[in-house]
């Protein structure tokens, strides 16, 4: 008998629209404000430059949006970036892999790392939070152990095109990110895969009873998360020209903050790629704007931490008021 069931229905899409509009508005105000403070801020060069820095976080934020929509989380992304960066450099330098093969190998390792997360989460039913904390430790440890904390440098010139080159003045990695944003956005909005993600997050049991391939889709999103982390590692190594085992440390914060700031509920069931993109841009502009107005680099992560907590607080209090 389930008579007194709570009626926790709320309008998802109008709220999201509101949230995204609100975010875009804040973004605009921040842009104008920062521009007024500093005349270097609102220049094309500066903005394109920021696009370069956004890409690694942005690549990972796309599958993270998928994961958070299903009600999961992946804390191991930063560690996978480190592991893949090491695999790229190490297999090239120590195994003597040709560089393209080393890149492919690093991407495969990333996908495998994500696949392992997904496999244990769906088969053994370890909660995603716990599983990815454990693999955060494991993957970072593997990067450290395999590399013996030695860095790799001296890549051939063509390798730097992805991280430092540009096409028609637009940073290469930003173009890659834009293409992937469009693909991810369409996948989430228009495909059965995307719809399944929302259904899992909103009511996993009902999704199973509707014959949706819940476990397969979860496995796919965690694998994608690993793959995207591998891609981010490639971009990162190409941008900074060296491979170090501590690469990507703390990325999980920026990525999760961008997704949550973009309106995805940490409890699952809602979120959009467009929201994530706005969240991402906001975080980067905040960082850059603060830096240009003289705030030191490390203080910006304080701002991100505050933004993360506040955005979840505001979202959940709005949600509760509607109930």
């Amino acid at each position: 008998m389930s008579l007194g069931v709570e009626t926790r229905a709320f309008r998802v899409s109008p709220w999201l629209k509101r949230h995204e509009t609100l975010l875009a508005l804040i973004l605009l105000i921040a842009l104008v404000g920062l521009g007024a403070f500093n005349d270097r801020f609102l220049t094309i060069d500066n903005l394109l430059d920021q696009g370069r820095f956004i890409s690694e976080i942005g690549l990972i934020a796309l599958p993270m949006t998928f994961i958070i929509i299903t009600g999961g989380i992946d804390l191991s992304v930063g560690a996978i970036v480190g592991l893949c960066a090491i695999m790229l450099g190490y297999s090239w330098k120590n195994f003597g892999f040709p560089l393209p093969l080393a890149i492919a190998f690093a991407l495969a390792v990333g996908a495998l790392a994500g696949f392992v997360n997904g496999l244990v989460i769906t088969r053994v039913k370890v909660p995603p939070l716990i599983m990815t904390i454990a693999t955060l430790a494991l993957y970072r440890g593997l990067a450290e152990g395999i590399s013996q904390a030695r860095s790799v440098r001296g890549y051939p010139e063509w390798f730097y095109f992805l991280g430092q080159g540009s096409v028609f003045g637009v940073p290469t990695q930003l173009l890659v990110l834009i293409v992937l944003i469009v693909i991810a956005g369409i996948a989430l909005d228009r495909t059965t895969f995307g719809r399944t993600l929302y259904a899992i997050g909103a009511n996993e049991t009902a999704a199973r009873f509707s014959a949706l391939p819940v476990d397969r889709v979860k496995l796919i999103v965690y694998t994608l998360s690993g793959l995207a982390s591998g891609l981010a590692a490639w971009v990162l190594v190409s941008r900074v020209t060296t491979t170090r085992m501590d690469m990507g440390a703390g990325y999980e914060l920026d990525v999760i903050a961008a997704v949550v700031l973009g309106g995805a509920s940490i409890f699952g069931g809602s979120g959009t790629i467009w929201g994530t993109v706005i969240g991402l841009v906001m975080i980067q502009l905040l960082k850059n704007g603060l830096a240009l107005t003289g705030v030191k680099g490390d203080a910006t992560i304080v701002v991100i931490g505050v933004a993360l907590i506040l955005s979840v607080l505001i979202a959940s209090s709005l949600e509760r008021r509607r109930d």
Partner: protein
Amino acid sequence: MSATTIASPGYARRAAFRRLVGQEALLAVAIIGLAIVVGLINPRFLATRNLSDLLLGNAYIAIAAIGMSMVIISGNIDISVGALIGVLATISGSLAVAGAPIVIAWVVPILVGVAVMAAQGAIVAYLRIPSIVVTLGMLSILKGGLISVTGGKWITDLPQDFHLADLSLFGVPMPVIIMVLATVLAALWMRNSPSGRAIYATGGNPEAARLCGVNPQRTVLMVFALHGLFAGIASLVYATQLRVIQSTTPQGLELTIITAAVVGGVSILGGVGTVVGSTLAAILIAEITSALVFINVSPYWTDALRGALILATVIADILRRQRRAAQGWKR
């Protein structure tokens, strides 16, 4: 459920005994066994100096793992504790160098630790924000805040009497005394006080806890405040054994502390565990790290080993629960 599984008193007592002492006994055996094996390979491992260094240098991890165990038992997680310990150590050192009375330099970080954790606990308990989000945010606030305030400057020239960790009582170094005392007191409190038991009830079955008159929200707040207390004590032990405080957050410290708590038998799904186990696990992890050096394995493999250890423990714990569920607990 057949008649054969109906517990006879003797069987039941043994089962209860196994559940309560199982993980602790296992850890104790592992600690001794590892010491013997590594000692056979390289006898220098068993040198008093090495063993005492091992305990001294890792006591703060065991102390912090006590609070972490409580947090996990209550069904939450905290990944900000490593950064917090770094911040508190810096506060402590700065006060001492600035000429504040030593007692102030010792006590203020503990109070700050309680305040920071209690604030997080309040957000988790009363505003119902998942602890991972709150503590992830706090991690970055503490980390960024620390570096931007201190500029990463090292704190040197600490006054001689600041070094609490250098003291000893009846030949036992202070960090070990504090570790043992904190573990024993916390274990007794968790076992013998109604509010200690409430932690288990909250983590095990919050709905039922409420029906039994336990207030899960107040319990979570209390747990975080206590976690702050232990983090404060841990930072004190940590800071006062350093000659130079680096005013950065120790890399990956939160993972070591979580590993100690989980490997010590705290179920990651909440509701089980003891702090004796977490302290033993902290010692075991320190022992493994040290042993690697003595058997000529690169210390860079330590973190991978720690990761594998936590992963194996978590999976074993979940499988054990599922087996029990299949035997009829959840029907």
